[in-house]
């Protein structure tokens, strides 16, 4: 019942599938890096939906799991380089959590290529573009993250059936 459509209209989905990726960007570095990429008119795929967070350490693993529950195709978590964290150590905690989360999601059938955890500083606009491009291409290659409904699943009225491209 909670299968919310990713931010994409159904019509568009039918025309051509485009991955939808959620990017959690740390306010101090990666968001600024993305901003700079924009203002420098660097080219990168428009597939990301940016969520600005105070720190990569603020990215609760539940955010990422929620994204896949809702059927997004990929997730990017980007923060300040080690040593540069605005809060001194938030990114160090993230660096422990995120790979482990990737292990778990991979085990559950979410291909590791759909998740990227990386460092992007405020000045690395080019790197931001690269990271987004890389992830988008990787996800494109993997195809849509679809969630088949097991046969035994309780049937809901048609209009509540999960809709997915």
């Amino acid at each position, binding site marked *: *019942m909670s299968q919310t459509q990713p931010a994409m209209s159904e019509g568009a989905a039918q025309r051509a599938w485009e991955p939808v990726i959620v990017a959690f960007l740390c306010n101090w570095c990666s968001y600024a890096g993305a901003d700079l990429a924009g203002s420098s008119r660097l080219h990168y795929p428009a597939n990301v939906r940016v969520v600005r967070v105070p720190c990569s350490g603020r990215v609760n693993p*539940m955010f990422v799991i929620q994204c896949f529950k809702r059927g997004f195709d990929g997730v990017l978590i980007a923060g300040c380089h080690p040593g540069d964290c605005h809060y001194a150590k938030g990114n160090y905690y993230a660096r422990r959590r995120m790979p*482990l989360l990737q292990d778990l999601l991979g085990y559950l059938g979410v291909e590791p290529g759909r998740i990227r955890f990386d460092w992007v500083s405020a000045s690395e606009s080019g790197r931001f573009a690269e990271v987004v491009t890389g992830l988008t291409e990787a996800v494109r290659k993997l195809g849509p993250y679809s*969630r088949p409904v*097991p046969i035994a699943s309780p049937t809901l009225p048609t209009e509540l059936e*999960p809709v997915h491209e």
Partner: protein
Amino acid sequence: MSNMETAMRETAARLLTEGRVALVLGYEAGSVPFKTAPTFVERAEDVGRLVWSPFCTNNLAVYLPKLKGVGRVAIVAKGCDARSAVTLIQEHQIPREQVVIIGLHCSGMVDVDRLAPIDGSLAGIFISMEADGRLTVASGDGRRTLAVGEVLQERCRVCAYNTPAIADEILGDPASPMPASADPFAVVAEMERLPAAERQAFWRTQVERCLRCYACREACPACYCRTCFADKAAPRWLSKANTVDENWMFHAVRAFHLAGRCVECGECERVCPMDIPISKLNRLLDRDVRERFGYVAGLDPEGVPPLGTFRPDDPDPGGHEG
């Protein structure tokens, strides 16, 4: 009555009589021969209630955080239970000095389903322990005598900590280690051999039948959050509608919350009325936490769970895909 049982009762009586503890957490006889029930002994004259058998499967550490305020508590603990107690001490859920761990050498717990006679029903079954530790099971089909080792729970077969790693007193003869042939992570490797799409289908099929009764969570000593994310109304992380997606998220998040904290006592899986192989998830994170951080949960009360700390020289994702 086994020697272990006698020793356990004596220890409990002594602790209570000397006023060293206010309560002893242990097992009493269950309503049927193949069950025991957690019990709370508060008076030395009641220690006769305490039993010890290969049916003492519950992880009693689950009660420790709930017993705050009763005073010092003694807990009868198998190796896995002792590790849970250690985790609770590490995480400041109970002060070390408020718990007395009565460790027991454990030879494993019986998987009750493996005792069922031919008609599948355990109704009217009778079980007795032989002097050599074997079980005699009598049912309408007749009598069978079998070694506990033949009917062990899966988690016990692969247990490496059947001697409590930490205890204030240890009872019984040192148990022989469980057969080393069993690789605790074989199930993980087996799962990993499947293609991603099949893994996804597997887990979705498993969690589809989840009733969200939360028996797994409630039986877990590490699940002591005052309000579980699954019950939070604001933000509402999880819908109460138990659709596949919601169930999937519940199990994914619960597994992750236990990363580096789960001691593989397997109670979550045992209590699941829908037979969801929950341990298979926990086992993965257990292995990966060992590999990535060289950490094993529940061995050192002074230790810090790996996700609660970091090292500046932890491996860097450095542009790679994780």
